[in-house]
């Protein structure tokens, strides 16, 4: 359960102020599938970052799964991100030195899971995302679709309640993009809240709820 009320996020560039989010109020129930669309600069990524506790609003309140997370310290926010949120980015953000398996393992290491249990979970994820034969390849040796599958496996290895995807298909061609979307939708069917920011009308339309943004405000919210 995500509950935002009157969220404002202002960026200052010299003497100029940009209201990236201007009084956003939004409820998203657990297990929803939401797309966020809008022109460039309308505040979609900023909204996603606030929801994912990567960014702090300048004013407003944020309640996640029944508890107020507005005033949490940096360390507490890191813990909530680790336990409840999974991020998927347009540019994958894999660690280039690490293999696919090691990239997927990272959240488990951060969480302090024991090595034996880690490898079992990583193995299961490699199977689930059809990456078994790519386990020991580095990101540079993987295709775009494979990279995004590694990123999704990493985002979901700790079973987050919400999966936040910021243009997950932006760097992929149409067919591969559709495959990646199908993967994300499968996770939604398994119960995860799925929030996708996209420029692609066709992909956006697949969501069950469509949020439109403009100039830092929500201008449309249709189911």
């Amino acid at each position, binding site marked *: 359960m995500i509950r935002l009320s009157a969220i404002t996020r202002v960026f200052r560039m010299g003497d100029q102020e940009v209201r990236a989010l201007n009084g956003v109020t939004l409820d998203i129930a657990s297990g929803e599938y939401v797309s966020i669309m809008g022109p460039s600069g309308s505040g979609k990524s900023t909204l996603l970052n606030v929801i994912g506790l990567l*960014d702090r609003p300048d004013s407003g309140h944020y309640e996640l799964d029944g508890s107020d997370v507005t005033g949490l310290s940096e360390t507490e926010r*890191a813990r909530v991100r680790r336990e409840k949120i999974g991020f998927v980015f347009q540019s994958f953000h894999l660690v280039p030195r690490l293999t696919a398996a090691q990239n997927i393992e990272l959240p488990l290491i*951060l969480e302090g899971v024991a090595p034996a249990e880690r490898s079992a979970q990583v193995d299961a994820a490699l199977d689930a995302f059809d990456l078994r034969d790519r386990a020991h390849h580095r990101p540079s040796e993987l295709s775009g679709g494979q990279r995004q599958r590694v990123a999704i496996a990493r985002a979901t290895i700790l079973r987050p309640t919400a999966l936040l995807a910021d243009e997950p298909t932006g760097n992929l061609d149409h067919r591969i993009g559709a495959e990646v979307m199908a993967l994300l939708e499968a996770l939604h069917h398994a119960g995860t809240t799925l929030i996708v920011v996209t420029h692609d009308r066709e992909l956006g339309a697949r969501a069950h709820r469509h949020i439109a943004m403009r100039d830092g405000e929500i201008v449309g919210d249709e189911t």
Partner: protein
Amino acid sequence: MNLRDTLVLSLSTVASYRTRSLLIVLAMALGVAAVVVLTALGDGARRYVVGQFSSLGTNLVIVLPGRAETAGGFPGASLGETPRDLTLEDARLVGQLPQVRRYAPLNVGVAELTSAGRLREVTVLGSTADLLPIRHMKLSQGSFLARGSEKSAQIVLGSVLAREFFPDGRAVGQRVRLGDSRFLVSGVLAPQGESMGFNSDEIVIIPIDYAQELFNTESLFRLLVEARSRTAIEPAKAAITHLLKLRHDGEEDVTVITQDAVLDTFDRILTALTLGVAGIAAISLAVAGILVMNVMLVAVAQRTSEIGLLKAIGAPASDIRRLFFAEALWLSLAGGALGFALGHAGAFVIRLAYPVLPAYPPAWASVAGVATALLTGVVASLLPAARAARLDPVLALSGK
């Protein structure tokens, strides 16, 4: 993130940036090696000097006739008064002092040694049986001057002289002529080489009575005294001074020097030198530390988006800080270990090249060198690690 995973992950990072890591490790290693090698040299020099002194004898107290002038004069040359002789009787009484283990009177001169048609001018030492243990001399053949037989005409030859005069190697029992008297060769000294500028391989030793007769003197050149122990050196010095003052009508007309005083001075000077040299070498470690800091700052800048990702998947600032910290630790650990090995190898090569110099790196220097490397590396990583931990995740993810 637990400690073990932090160490493993940072080690793999260090290993994957091979050139960068190698550079830092090398810089660290050279600094540590410099500390180890230079202190080995300094301490080797110190040991060499100390060794030279102790080869003269342990717990040695030396009595010279004449008063050492503080204002630059030298013993036996004080103006205005003729110092009283230091006699054999003086020596005998000094030998009875409780602080004294043994003593050896000494006269030195030059005379012609002849035998079997060969003739050569040699340095002659007149002394007694106890000269051998006091001066740590060794024999290669025969026996030294016999105890209590000062009146028998024996002679001990230095090893080079023995070889020159008796090439067949059978010197003991042969007769030689020294000045106008005939002597029976009782023993040959083992080769000792040069020690404090004095070559004991080209001397002869005869009983003190014969030497005084040969050089026509009643006064000893030196009186060598061995104190019972290291702590007895100063009491022995005082007792000798007191005794000889009494015997010489209340005049302090001898000089008593202890080897320890001289030795301590050298020891102190050379230790200070070693420390100074180690300090200079440690500066190169500080330079390595600056290099570490610089390279780590660059690494933080290069890996900004990776740091952002780690934060996005839930790494707290403390984990990020520890990761960079651990990287510096690995680098300086490797640098320290390599430097330690290089330094000891260098000292070994020096010992091979200059066998007389005991260039062993002192343990404190090795420890201090490695510890300084670790400390520098870790201190140098504080700023980059803190900077990485402070990065804003959103900005970091976008690579800004």
